[in-house]
């Protein structure tokens, strides 16, 4: 049976915000959240009663993020080497912020796989459908992303964060 949409926001709002934050720059993440939930509200009456609501929301968020990234690229002036992303908000070098930065520095596919599998908790099969790759490739991207994250996060900002 279908829940009132308010419950959907209550149950999944925080997770979708973390996913948006992981796949987009800070200033775009909240806009993507808003667009995701507005689009979801519009489509909600047509959603199957037994659909996986979280996978559905993450799929919408993914499409919004791809749109935002494309629009940003069109506006951006090309540079030879992308500047190192620097934390300008929160406490500099704080544990949370440096981890968000480390996520932001991941290659796109790894960042998406880590966000959808590890932050949203979707199975690799669902992640594969969203990214339009095979489940094995989705699993590999998530694993590579975590390995990368451990390495860069440990070496750049937080040596004691390394786990061996």
């Amino acid at each position: 049976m279908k829940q009132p949409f308010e419950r959907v926001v209550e149950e999944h709002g925080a997770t979708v915000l973390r996913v948006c934050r992981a796949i987009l720059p800070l200033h775009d993440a909240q806009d993507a959240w808003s667009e995701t939930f507005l689009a979801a509200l519009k489509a909600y009456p047509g959603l199957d009663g037994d659909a996986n609501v979280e996978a559905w929301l993450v799929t919408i968020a993914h499409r919004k993020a791809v749109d935002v990234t494309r629009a940003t690229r069109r506006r951006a002036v090309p540079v030879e080497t992308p500047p190192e992303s620097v934390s300008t908000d929160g406490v500099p070098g704080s544990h949370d912020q440096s981890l968000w930065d480390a996520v932001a520095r991941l290659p796109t596919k790894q960042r998406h796989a880590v966000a959808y599998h590890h932050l949203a908790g979707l199975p690799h099969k669902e992640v594969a459908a969203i990214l339009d790759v095979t489940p094995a490739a989705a699993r590999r991207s998530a694993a590579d992303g975590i390995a990368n994250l451990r390495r860069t996060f440990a070496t750049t900002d937080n040596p004691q964060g390394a786990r061996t």
Partner: protein
Amino acid sequence: MTTADEPEVLSLLEPLHEPDPEVLARLHQRLESSAQADGLLDLAYRTVETSVGQLLLAATEQGLVRVAYAREDHDLVLARLVELVSPRILRAPRRLDAAARQVEEYFSAGRREFDLPLDLRLAKGFRREVLAHLPEIAYGRTESYAQVAQAAGSPRAVRAVGSACATNPLPVVVPCHRVVRSDGVLGGYVGGAEAKRTLLALEAAAG
């Protein structure tokens, strides 16, 4: 929600799981406004605290569609509204500003009648005719089920008046509490006998 089979990854990503209630509250408000602007807010609801407990108020774009007592179970009431009206439901207090203010005024004994757009879509046929008559019973007065049946044009439909009152989707605002048995007994009430007594005592004191 993280994959439980990878505890090390879970602790690595732990800092990313901090929810920020303030940001989420602001985003929720933004969603309420844009949903309203885009005509997607089929149902808005909020609650108000009163001397008969917490009341749920829900409104469509046409008007107030449901008032519910806590004993009706607000979660159940919302679940029924999903089926009967729409699943596009948000806790969006702004649409209910006027309704909430008037309900509060009623309970602080200042307000004698409600001046709100009503959406009576949850009541059909004869029940709806009964509800349409109820606001004509003056504040502080009562009528018997038989009198209401007569006023609604079906003097023999006394039991039907009873069930119209029992299923009133807008208690308090549509005053079914002013309908009592002809022998003086209060009769049933969707908010419970105690709430009916409280409302009638409130009106008697103020009237």
